[in-house]
C-alpha cells in the first residue's frame, strides 16, 4: 500500500502528481521527461518535494504539513537504479551484503548466501560487476535491493541497459522475482511491452501529471483520453461525428465513412448525436479484404473503407502499412489515415507491394471510443 502526493517545481518543469496503489507491481509509464524518475527519487528521499505526502504501509516517509522528512537511510526501500549502479570495487557477494552492515555477521552471511543462491549467482559470487553479463548485473542489483527485505521496491528502467534479445528473457526473470516479492514494486518504464508483462496496475504520466491510473486492463483497454492513448503509444487516434448511439453500438461518421463501434453497456453516458468524438482503431485489428474471393463474408461486411496504401514500415515479422482512405477532406496526419499491421506472410501473399488499392474492414469491437477530444483539436 503506497500513497503518493508530490509537488515539485523546477524552472520550466512542474511535477504535480497524486496516486495511490495497493500491493503488486505498478508501472509508472509515460514518455521520457514526464517526471517518472523524479517521482522515484522523491520516494527514495534523494530529492525533497516542495510539498506533499508519501506514505508506505501506514508509515509516513514525507509529510510537508506534519514536517516529516525521513532521511534516505531510514526509509527502508529497495532501489534498482537505471544502469544498476553496482559498486565496481566490490564483489557480487559484497554488493549484495552492502545493506546488511548493521546486522550480526552470522545473519548477514546467511542472508547473503540465501540471496545469491536464490538468484543463481553462486558461480559468480566472487567476481566484480565488470566481469558479469548484463543479466547477471541485473540480478545482483535486485539481490542488493531485496537483501534488506524493503517495504517498497523501486526500479528505474530496469531493462533499458540491456540489448533486445536479452531484454525479453530477462523480463521473464524480473517478472518472477517481482511476483515473489509480494509487496508493492514500482517499475518506471517507457516500454509498453514491459508494462504488459510486468504490471498489475498502471500510472500514466504525461508532462509532470498523472493522466490516468488504474488496473492494467482498464487503462490499456479504455484509455481515459486521447492524451492517454497517445502516451500509451496507441496509434490511429481519429475524430468523427456521432450519428446514433445506443447501449450496444455507436454509429459515427468519419470523413464520409460510416463506422460502427461496439459500445459497453456500463458506459455511463452515451455520446449525443451530432457531437464530435475521438476514437482509435488498433492497427493489428484492421483486415485487408482479399480481391480473389468475391467480396467479404457477411460478418466482415462492416466498417468497410476503400483507399490506397501510400507507404510501409518494415518491423521485422510485421509490416505497418500506411493507409490513406478515400473520402472528404485531408488525411488525418502525415499524408495517411490509418496504420495497419499485417504479418509479413500476408504482405507477400497479397502482393501489397505492387497492388496498392485496397478495401479494409474493422470489427466494431476494434473501434474504441475515447472520452473527450484531443485538447489541441477541440473546437474553440
Amino acid at each position, binding site marked *: 500500500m503506497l500513497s503518493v502526493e508530490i509537488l515539485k517545481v523546477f524552472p520550466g518543469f512542474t511535477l504535480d502528481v497524486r496516486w495511490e496503489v495497493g500491493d503488486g507491481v505498478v508501472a509508472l509509464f509515460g514518455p521520457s521527461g514526464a517526471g517518472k524518475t523524479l517521482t522515484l527519487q522523491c520516494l527514495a528521499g534523494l530529492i525533497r518535494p516542495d510539498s506533499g505526502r508519501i506514505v508506505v504501509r501506514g508509515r509516513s516517509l514525507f509529510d510537508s504539513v506534519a514536517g516529516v522528512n525521513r532521511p534516505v537511510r531510514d526509509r527502508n526501500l529497495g*532501489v534498482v537504479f537505471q544502469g544498476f549502479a553496482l559498486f565496481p570495487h566490490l564483489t557480487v557477494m559484497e554488493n549484495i551484503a552492502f545493506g546488511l552492515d548493521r546486522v550480526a555477521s552470522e545473519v548477514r552471511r546467511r542472508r547473503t548466501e540465501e540471496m545469491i543462491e536464490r538468484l543463481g549467482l553462486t558461480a559468480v559470487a566472487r567476481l566484480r560487476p565488470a566481469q558479469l553479463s548484463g543479466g547477471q548485473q541485473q540480478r545482483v542489483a535486485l539481490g542488493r535491493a531485496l537483501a534488506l527485505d524493503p517495504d517498497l521496491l523501486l526500479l528505474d528502467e530496469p531493462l533499458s541497459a540491456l540489448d533486445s534479445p536479452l531484454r525479453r528473457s530477462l523480463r521473464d526473470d524480473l517478472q518472477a522475482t517481482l511476483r515473489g516479492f509480494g509487496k508493492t514494486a514500482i517499475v518506471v518504464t517507457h516500454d509498453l511491452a514491459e508494462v504488459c508483462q510486468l504490471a498489475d496496475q498502471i500510472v500514466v504520466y504525461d508532462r509532470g501529471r498523472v493522466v490516468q491510473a488504474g488496473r492494467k486492463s482498464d487503462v490499456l483497454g479504455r484509455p481515459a483520453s486521447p492524451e492517454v492513448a497517445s502516451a500509451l503509444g496507441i496509434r490511429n487516434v481519429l475524430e468523427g461525428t456521432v450519428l446514433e448511439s445506443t447501449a450496444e453500438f455507436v454509429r459515427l461518421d468519419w470523413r464520409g465513412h460510416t463506422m460502427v463501434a461496439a459500445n459497453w453497456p456500463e458506459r455511463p453516458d452515451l455520446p449525443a448525436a451530432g457531437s464530435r468524438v475521438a476514437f482509435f482503431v488498433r492497427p493489428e485489428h484492421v483486415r485487408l479484404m482479399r480481391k480473389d474471393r468475391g467480396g467479404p463474408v457477411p460478418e466482415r461486411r462492416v466498417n468497410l473503407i476503400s483507399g490506397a496504401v501510400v507507404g510501409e514500415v518494415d518491423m521485422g515479422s510485421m509490416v505497418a502499412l500506411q493507409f490513406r482512405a478515400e473520402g472528404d477532406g485531408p488525411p488525418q496526419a502525415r499524408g495517411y489515415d490509418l496504420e495497419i499491421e499485417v504479418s509479413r506472410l500476408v504482405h507477400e501473399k497479397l502482393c501489397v507491394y505492387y497492388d496498392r488499392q485496397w478495401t479494409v474492414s474493422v470489427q466494431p469491437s476494434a473501434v474504441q471510443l475515447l472520452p473527450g477530444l484531443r485538447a489541441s483539436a477541440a473546437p474553440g
Partner: protein
Amino acid sequence: MDFAPILMSARVASLATLLAVVTGTPLAWLLGRHRFRGQAFIEGLVLLPLVLPPTVLGYYLLVLVNRSAPVGQLFDGLGLELAFTWRGAVLAAWVGSFGLFVRAAQAGFELVDPRLEDAARTLGRSEWSVFCAVTLPLAWRGLAAGTALAFCRAVGEFGITLMVAGNIPGRTQTVPLAIYDYVQANRMAEANALSLLTLAVVGLLLLLARRGSGARL
C-alpha cells in the same frame, strides 16, 4: 658524504605529504562533490602557491610565523617553534605541495558516479559510511596520484624552505639545499650523487603515480 640532508628530506617530505593528505582530502572532497558560491575563488586560492614565486610565498610565511608574529608566538608557546627549525621546513613543503594534492584528489572525487553514493544511502548507510565504503575507495586513484605528486614536490622544495627554515646543516638542511651548498663549494661529486638520488626517487614515484591514475596526470 653527509647523510643528514637525506634523512632530513625524508622526514620533512613525509610529514608534509601526510599533512597535505589530511588537510587536502576534505577540501578536495568539497570541491569535487559539491557546487557552491565562491568555489572558483577557493580553487584559485589552491592554485596560487603553485604559480607564485617560492620566495614570495616564503616571505609571507615568514611574516606569519616569525617569533614576533601572533601565529609564531602561538606555536612558540606550544613548544613548536616554526621559524628556522625543521618544523618550518615541513610547513614550507606542505604549502608547496598542498595545491598539487588537492587538484589530483579533486579530479579523483569528480570521477565517482554520484548514483553509487545514492545507492549506498538507499541501502541504509550514513553519510560517513558512504564516504568510507564508496567514495574513498573509488576516488582512491586520484588520492594516490595526488599523494605521490605532493611527495615529489615536497622533496624538491627549495625556495620556501630557504626563506622559512633557512639552510642550517644538520638542523634544517634538506637535499636540495645541500646540493646548492655543494655546488657553491665546488664539491661536484656530492652534488652529483644527491641529484641522481633525487632524480631516481622522484622519477620512480611519478611513474607509479601515472600508472595508478591511468595516465591522467
